[in-house]
């Protein structure tokens, strides 16, 4: 049930540096915790997160156990043309998630 919020500037010019922000609903279980019966809670972090912009992959990350639940990422890309930013992720439990947002490039 992972889902996400993506924040982009409403409109940008070609060549601008664009701030991309995403927060993803995910427990980011470290694998170091135990439940009430003393059993280890299985590690479940986002082992792979990618962002594609047009045909290009602009971000690839592996978030380990050091990142808190509901990770928030912020990075910059260069605006080239209008198109979708497509995020895809896989966690240690094998669950896939994705989210997309349209970037509007003027000029």
């Amino acid at each position, binding site marked *: 049930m992972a*889902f996400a*919020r993506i*924040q982009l500037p409403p409109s940008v010019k070609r060549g601008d540096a664009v701030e991309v*922000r995403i*927060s993803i*609903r995910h427990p980011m279980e470290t694998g170091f915790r135990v439940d009430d019966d003393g059993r280890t809670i299985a590690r479940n972090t986002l082992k792979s997160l990618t962002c594609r912009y047009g045909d290009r992959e602009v971000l690839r990350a592996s978030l380990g156990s050091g990142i808190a*639940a*509901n990770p928030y990422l912020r990075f910059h890309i260069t605006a080239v043309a209008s198109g979708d930013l497509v995020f895809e992720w896989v966690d240690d439990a094998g669950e896939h998630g994705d989210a997309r947002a349209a970037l509007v490039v003027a000029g």
Partner: protein
Amino acid sequence: MTPLDVARAAGAAVLGIALAAGAAWAAPRSGIDYAGADVRAIQSDDAQNPGMLWVDRGRALWSDGPRPCASCHGDAASSMKGVAARHPAWSTAARRVVDLEDRINACRVERQQLPAFARESEDLNALTAFVATQSRGMPVAVDVTGLAQPAFERARDFYVARRGQMNLACASCHVDNAGKRLLAETISEGHGNGYPAYRLEWQAVGSLQRRLRACLFGIRASLPPEGADVLTELELYLAWRASGLTVEAPGVRR
């Protein structure tokens, strides 16, 4: 002690009482004003505030199902505006004080003919956060008169009564020692205007009742079950204490 010393001591005592009374009637300060700059930064930016993930989920639930909330209430931005600011409130149907979670569940059972959400379930917290967000920036203003008054008075007594193994009342920390440190934490005035809030400790959005139970656990008092009248009435008293503070939901707290 000379007569002058006695007079000075008496004067100091009178001044002390005046200061204490002044402090008790000072305008309430929201919990976010006691938080560090990092927490304030997260709350003030919706793109960073993880509570907005719950609000989004609540927005989806608002129009979900064969008889969604939206089929009666339409656009939540207008129909739900101010609702969180006047809850908890007396419900003539339930004949008790109900909080926003109770109100949503009552609608769900009676109008939508669906099973009630479990207290503290992610769906209930999400829908409550979504509804509460519509009152953002509005001053908390609950009605504690009329039929709600006995409940209000019970909660007021609860607030000042010592309990638990630590023998502390709510007021021992949140009135007498607000602003001071408890180990690494600054004690706030204990207002509920940020709830449902994302607590960094929980790594999730939780209700005010969850927070109240955590406080009772902390002073090693017996824990009323979620949704118990004693907690709902305490929410009413807290809302009255917070009168004039604005709704911050979804707030961010440590």
